[in-house]
């Protein structure tokens, strides 16, 4: 009974504290109307174990850009939906998602990846590397213009070929370098083409003699 009371008290204190934090961060930055909506969405998100920072950031961004409150509200609800979808996709992968991974998953969805893509990427992430980092790499590739399916395939191939975490993190820069090399040779190379070249290299590495494929683990 005592434990229950203490837990309840801590939960109430924690919710009250996070509510105060949200209020403090929004003070003077957004309209009262937007602040009230963020407060409501953030309280609900925190109760479901979702990160609240993307909601706060989107509200501040909207106000800074002079976007009308009703448009900010639409964007906020979209972010809230992406956070929910990302959490579900990560759970589908068997992961115990942390708020960082959920935020990265929501960003990946906004960048054009699907729920299934997020699930697949979480599944191929090795325990040694962070799911959030893998999702950030994939969303950056998608934001560069690499098609979602190709993005997932490239990241998966590099991880399964035994690529280190640093190699995975360097993929966007590698794609950019491939595009630049194309320009240097006087021909246009799209990010998709550059990514395809990296995929072929990863496949060749995976099939090289003596190469042992690491088993992807659940994060």
């Amino acid at each position, binding site marked *: 009974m005592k434990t229950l009371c203490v837990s309840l008290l801590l939960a109430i204190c924690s919710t009250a504290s996070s509510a105060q934090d949200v209020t403090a961060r929004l003070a003077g*930055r957004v309209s009262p109307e937007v602040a009230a909506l963020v407060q409501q969405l953030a309280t609900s998100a925190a109760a479901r174990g979702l990160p609240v920072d993307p909601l706060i*950031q*989107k509200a*501040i*961004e*909207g106000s*800074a*850009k002079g*976007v009308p409150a009703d*448009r*900010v509200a*639409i*964007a906020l609800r*979209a*972010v809230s939906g992406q956070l929910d979808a990302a959490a579900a996709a990560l759970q589908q992968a068997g992961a115990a998602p942390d708020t960082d991974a959920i935020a*990265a998953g929501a*960003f990946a969805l*906004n*960048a*054009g990846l699907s729920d299934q893509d997020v699930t697949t990427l979480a599944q191929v992430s090795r325990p040694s590397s962070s799911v959030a980092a893998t999702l*950030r*790499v994939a*969303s*950056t590739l998608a*934001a*560069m*213009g690499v098609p979602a399916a190709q993005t997932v395939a490239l990241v998966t191939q590099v991880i399964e070929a035994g690529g280190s975490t640093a190699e995975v993190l360097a993929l*966007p820069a590698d794609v950019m370098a491939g595009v630049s090399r194309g320009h240097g040779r006087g021909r246009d190379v799209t990010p998709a083409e550059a990514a395809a070249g990296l995929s072929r290299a990863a496949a060749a590495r995976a099939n090289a003699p003596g190469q042992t494929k690491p088993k992807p683990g659940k994060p």
Partner: protein
Amino acid sequence: MIDFHPQVKQLLDGELTLADLPPELRAEGEEALRLLAAVDREPVTFPALEARVLAELRRRQGRASSLWRRLVAPREVRLRVRPWTLVPALAMAAALVVLLSRPEPTPPTATVTVRFVLFAPEAQQVALAGTFNQWDQAATPLVRTGTPGVWAATLTLPAGQHEYAFVVDGARWVADPGAPAVDDGFGRRNSVLSL
């Protein structure tokens, strides 16, 4: 209650004898001694009450004390150990000691220095706003470089993913043409920086 003369009281206390009393007090002294001798000096006892009190005490202490006695009573324990069975236990203990004594690695707070550049020859002022500065367009102004029309700012940012845009002349939000971009939810594009 009889109020005796102080000297008679001394007699009763045994401090004086009857002979020590002045003649006029001797009669009073004798009377006092007579009364004292008549007092019943047998101790007063209440055997039934005593028995009841002791029985109640035994009843209250009985259960707890017997349990406690059972718990604390010394017992002889015989232990036979086969030496080889100790090896896994010792190995586990050693592993536990090593694990617990190993200091928790503190993840370094990685920061990366980034140079933002925008070519905006017509601009009077350019600023940088993003998730790293709470979208505050007054926080990070770009400065003109030596090359005409080129504005730049150098920032040290924490590793992670950041969204940003340039703000030209305090009103026009422009995505970085040299960086990937995503929909900002308001009909524009935000540039993406992954560190």
